[in-house]
């Protein structure tokens, strides 16, 4: 056997910059022409960019707040998305209301753009309720914890959309690690065979807990779908415009009967896998710093700073300056964070009777017996509870 270490990238495969990576905004904020993506960005204005800047700033703040809340013991766990704001905002901004999203556990930014109240995310990760949002209102499925399982659900949903001649599409979010799972590969077989309106949106954030993406794929992840008969595009996942355009393009293809598309958004998980992880054990500071220089929010800011003119106006008709953009984003983030903390104080832990809820949709005699048994068991402690209360 050879002695190739699986923990080092194969030679000849630099991450960025690379010729087959679609990029519209460079890390320095320069706009680059892209033959495939530019047609999908004709409506981009300074006001729209300011809106994307605001959304990314708000979800970064949401992420930071929740990471802190976990450290303070208010949440049991939190899966940070720090660094992936452009992938989530760009793709979610491309979606229509009637499109349906099948997320993993890290799509808290996507959830925010689907209209999920940030407090709902806190409720969920705190354990106050079993779910943080109403899927029927948001067209956002419950989060999936098993890696890649939701890709099949998206395909099944898209099969239904096709049967109904719907103009909606389904989108499945997953990470680079999930592409090694049977489910994701089988989802691609199904999607191609049935030619369904689905978008596979892979956020290649380079790490599956401690495992580098090179352990999942020796070639670019976006090379793989072609073998299933699914066109794929590799985009700079820290470039909100490239992600927006690529997702619009894929969704339009789905709506027009063009079948599935795969997007590999090349980004980086700046934080830990979850708050239970310590990434300093397996990756270098230099690598993290190199990605910090490609920050998704900074590049939009740099672009706006360089391109805003006196004639650019905000929504109220006032002058749109880079200072105003920054301030508006910061204010939106502050307001969200303040509402989050106020709301958190009002959250109530579930009572013990909640234990038997939502196991079956309809009454179930064995569960009812168990619930009654548990009620009687708890009743034994009534006296002790009073004593504790008296103290």
């Amino acid at each position, binding site marked *: *056997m050879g*002695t190739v*270490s*699986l*923990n080092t990238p194969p030679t000849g495969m630099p991450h960025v910059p690379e010729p087959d990576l679609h990029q519209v905004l460079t890390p320095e904020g320069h706009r680059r022409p892209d033959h495939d993506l530019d047609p999908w960005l004709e409506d981009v204005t300074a006001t729209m960019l300011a809106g994307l800047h605001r959304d990314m700033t708000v979800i970064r703040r949401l992420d930071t707040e929740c990471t802190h809340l976990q450290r303070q013991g208010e949440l*049991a*766990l939190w899966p940070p998305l720090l660094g992936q704001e452009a992938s989530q905002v760009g793709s979610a901004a491309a979606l229509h209301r009637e499109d349906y999203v099948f997320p993993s556990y890290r799509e808290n930014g996507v959830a925010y753009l689907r209209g999920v109240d940030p407090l709902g995310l806190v409720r969920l990760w*705190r*354990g*106050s309720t*079993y779910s943080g949002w109403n899927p029927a209102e948001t067209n956002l499925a419950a989060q999936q*914890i*098993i*890696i*890649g399982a939701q890709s099949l659900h998206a395909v099944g949903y898209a099969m239904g959309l096709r049967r109904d001649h719907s103009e909606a599409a389904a989108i499945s979010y997953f990470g680079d*690690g*999930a592409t*090694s*799972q*049977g*489910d994701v590969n089988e989802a691609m077989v199904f999607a191609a065979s049935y030619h369904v309106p689905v978008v596979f949106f892979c956020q290649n954030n380079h790490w*599956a*807990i*401690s*495992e580098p993406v090179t*352990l*999942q794929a020796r070639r670019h992840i976006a090379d793989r779908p072609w073998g299933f008969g699914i066109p794929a595009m590799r985009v700079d996942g820290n470039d909100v415009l490239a992600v927006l355009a690529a997702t619009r393009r894929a969704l339009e293809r789905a709506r027009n009967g063009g079948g599935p598309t795969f997007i590999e958004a090349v980004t980086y998980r700046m934080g830990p896998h979850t708050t239970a992880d310590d990434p300093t*054990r*397996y990756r270098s500071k230099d690598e993290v710093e190199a990605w910090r220089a490609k920050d998704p929010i900074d590049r939009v800011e740099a672009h706006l700073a360089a391109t805003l003119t006196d004639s650019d106006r905000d929504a109220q008709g006032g002058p749109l300056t880079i200072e105003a953009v920054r301030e508006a984003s910061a204010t939106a983030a502050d307001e969200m964070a303040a509402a989050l903390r106020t709301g958190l104080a009002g959250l109530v*832990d*579930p009572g*013990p009777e*909640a*234990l*038997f809820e939502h*196991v079956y949709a309809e009454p179930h005699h*064995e*569960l009812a017996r*168990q619930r009654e048994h*548990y009620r009687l*068991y708890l009743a*034994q402690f009534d006296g002790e509870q009073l004593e504790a209360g008296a103290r």
Partner: protein
Amino acid sequence: METTYREAMRTAIREALLQDDRVFLMGEDVGAYGGCFAVSLGLFEEFGPERVRDTPLSESAFVGAGIGAALNGMRPIVEIMTVNFSLLALDQIVNNAATLLHMSGGQFNVPLVIRMTTGAGRQLGAQHSHSLEGWFAHVPGLRILTPATVEDARGMLWTALEDPDPVLIFEHGSLYNLSGELAEDAGPVDIHAAAVRREGGDVSLITYGGTLPLTLEAADRLAAEGIEAEVLDLRTLRPLDDAAILATVVKTHRAVVVDEGWRSGSLSAEISARITESAFYELDAPVARVCSAEVPIPYARDLELAALPSAERVVAAAREAVGGGG
């Protein structure tokens, strides 16, 4: 020497890697990261990426590859992060590892060891917290081990690797930080017999794995009330040590089965059935069971605790069995 369950398990893996160059460990994050429960910490540095091998996120693939390697003479230790993820490899475990000896007319045995974390108690939610070892104990062709002490964490692995058939080792997540005294010369232990962890004549508490500590705690509390409980640690769920179960029931005439799995169609049901089959006329009380609530294990802390067996419930069930404090 004082050690933890986690360290004892690591020592066992390390010893196996040192003693037999056919042995290798593979799974998700077992390498530089040292395993998601830090069991293999330091082994990657000592043995290198060939023998402590990170795998792609493909449970079916790495269990299947483990079977192939075992068929070809290797002695793989496959780590599955949690029992919930083993369901992604169920076909390889149940339809392949467990059947190949039979279907090859005895020509191919599968000396594969699969280790996985099981159980709840760490707020990991319904897709990371179940206790499914009872399912696997249903399957002929597999041997199912549930080390619950530092001695067994230290000693079961080597014996499992020497076993010619597939062996599944279930490590309850709440046990990793358990510390205990381990003899300096501790080594391999048997993997066929149950063990009496506490002697007593009034009631038998039959358990295994993650519920052993709380069962022993319950026995202490019962002793304070004058009830002497005998605690039987099954250690091996397949094959079950019928003789040990029978012996303790014949001794105490009362049995409480403590099992973190769900009650219906469970290992606790199997044990109850075996007691009624072979010791019915020895019983002075119905066999009682303390199991998890039959709900997906909740994420919320209080609800999770409410769903799981506790020392209080074992005490209550034992009191009931002995007739209100006997």
